[in-house]
């Protein structure tokens, strides 16, 4: 089942196209890695999918009951003020505001869902701590829990491993793998080739002279894939 379809779309800022004639689709259960050099259109793509900037031409279509405002988005951690006073629970609960209709406070169901998310991501013990007291890996899990409060169907992660130490990175990736294994569709922007090698099913590669979208196996046989591998220090056998 398709969740997101873009057919021959052109995306960019203020009339300046960054990626032209892009065709891609996201199916339920996919694990898609979005790679490419800086300035090639990764963040433009993320913003377009989130509906923060409209495509210059064409339309990104949502289907299968997915709505644009119910994408579980994990922004880059650097975008968040590190000294912001906020408890873990406050952050995770705020993820469900997109479907929140009560006048005051959160409902009992919303609070129960928040507890479930915290347990699922192994951070139930941190619920009353402040965000600023957490390690980078713990902060990322909190933001992941918040994203899953918004939706349990599709997660869009923007460079989630940036600034994490190798162990926290490995833990985060295995967490994302297991979420994908439980049926959550994952789209992840990354600099790191390893998740692309291991877990991803499809690759969306942006470069200044076009893009690649397709299954992982095809990608690593393609010219773009081989260049990417070489740059990352992996010889292709």
């Amino acid at each position, binding site marked *: 089942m398709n969740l997101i379809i873009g057919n021959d779309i052109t995306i960019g800022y203020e009339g300046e196209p960054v990626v032209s004639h892009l065709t891609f689709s996201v199916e339920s259960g996919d694990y898609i890695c979005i790679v490419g050099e800086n300035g090639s259109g990764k963040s433009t793509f993320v913003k377009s999918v*989130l*509906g*923060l900037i409209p495509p210059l031409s064409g339309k990104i279509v949502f289907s299968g009951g997915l709505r*644009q*405002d*119910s*994408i579980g*988005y994990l*922004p880059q951690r650097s*975008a*968040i*003020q590190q000294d*912001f*006073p*906020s*408890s873990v629970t*406050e*952050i995770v*609960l*705020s*993820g469900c*505001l*997109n479907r*929140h209709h009560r*006048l*005051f*406070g*959160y409902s009992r169901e919303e609070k129960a869902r928040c507890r479930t998310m915290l347990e699922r991501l192994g951070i139930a013990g941190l619920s*009353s701590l*402040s965000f*600023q*007291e957490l390690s980078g890996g713990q902060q990322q899990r909190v933001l992941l829990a*918040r*994203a899953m409060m*918004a939706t349990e169907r599709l997660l869009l992660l923007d460079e989630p491993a940036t600034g994490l130490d190798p162990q926290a990175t490995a833990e985060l990736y295995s967490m994302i793998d297991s979420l994908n294994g439980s049926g959550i569709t994952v789209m992840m922007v990354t600099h790191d080739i390893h998740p692309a090698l291991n877990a991803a099913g499809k690759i969306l590669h942006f470069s200044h002279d076009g893009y690649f979208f397709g299954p992982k196996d095809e990608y690593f046989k393609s010219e773009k894939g081989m260049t990417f591998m070489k740059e990352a220090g992996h010889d292709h056998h």
Partner: protein
Amino acid sequence: MIITEILSYPFLSRALFVGFLISISSSLLGVSLVLRRYSMIGDGLSHVGFGALGIASLLSLSPLYVTLPVVVVSAFLLLRLSQRKGGGDSAIALLSSSALAIGVAAVSIGGVNTDLNAFLFGSILSVSRSDALISLAVSLVTLSAYLVFYHQIYATTFDPAFAKATGLRCERYNNLLALLTALVIVVGMRMLGSMLISSLLIFPSLSAMKVARTYFRVSVIAAAESVAAFLAGFIASYALSLPTGASIVIAHMLIFIILSASGLIIRRIHSVIS
């Protein structure tokens, strides 16, 4: 005892009541303003308010009817300026001093020099019965809007990108915050003066953040700090015949120093334990 004495004067109990409401509203708004790095908006608005007061007195118009629309419009203008790349802080500074200059010129043309002092530093005597009613209405609107949209204001302050992506209208809450700030500044300015009112927005949240680490606790402590500083300053001003606005701000300052010091000590103890 001193409280019952204060309460025996109708104009003082009126001022006490109005100040109480303004203290709570301003401290809550301040938490979000400070965290959004919008403190300059509050400061700019108070200067604009002074300019508007000067014009009102020159034209012998009712102060609130002039300041209210002028400050509200300026709030949206300042919000746009501060969202510019680079912060637009020089533009805000220019607007502030221009408004101040216009106010001073207007007051001096009007030739009533006693007004200048009251406009700049506030006057308890200026809280008339109709002022008290308008202040009450404005404070209630501010408080209820803040409470209803508390979670949305929090979410759009903490992470606007996520909030926007999940369909919250960030722009709407920015505008709401600017509007409420303008209202609180207009009603608070007459008692505290335009030079001092912005400290009512900024001190409580900064003090609260010295000791609290969650948004909810920061909000509650900020409101409590604001009320405490107001009462302490109000009583001190009555007992020692000090200007009210100045003694309230000094009370805020003292509490800020005490909480900063205790925050430091608490963290030192934590780091020794762990």
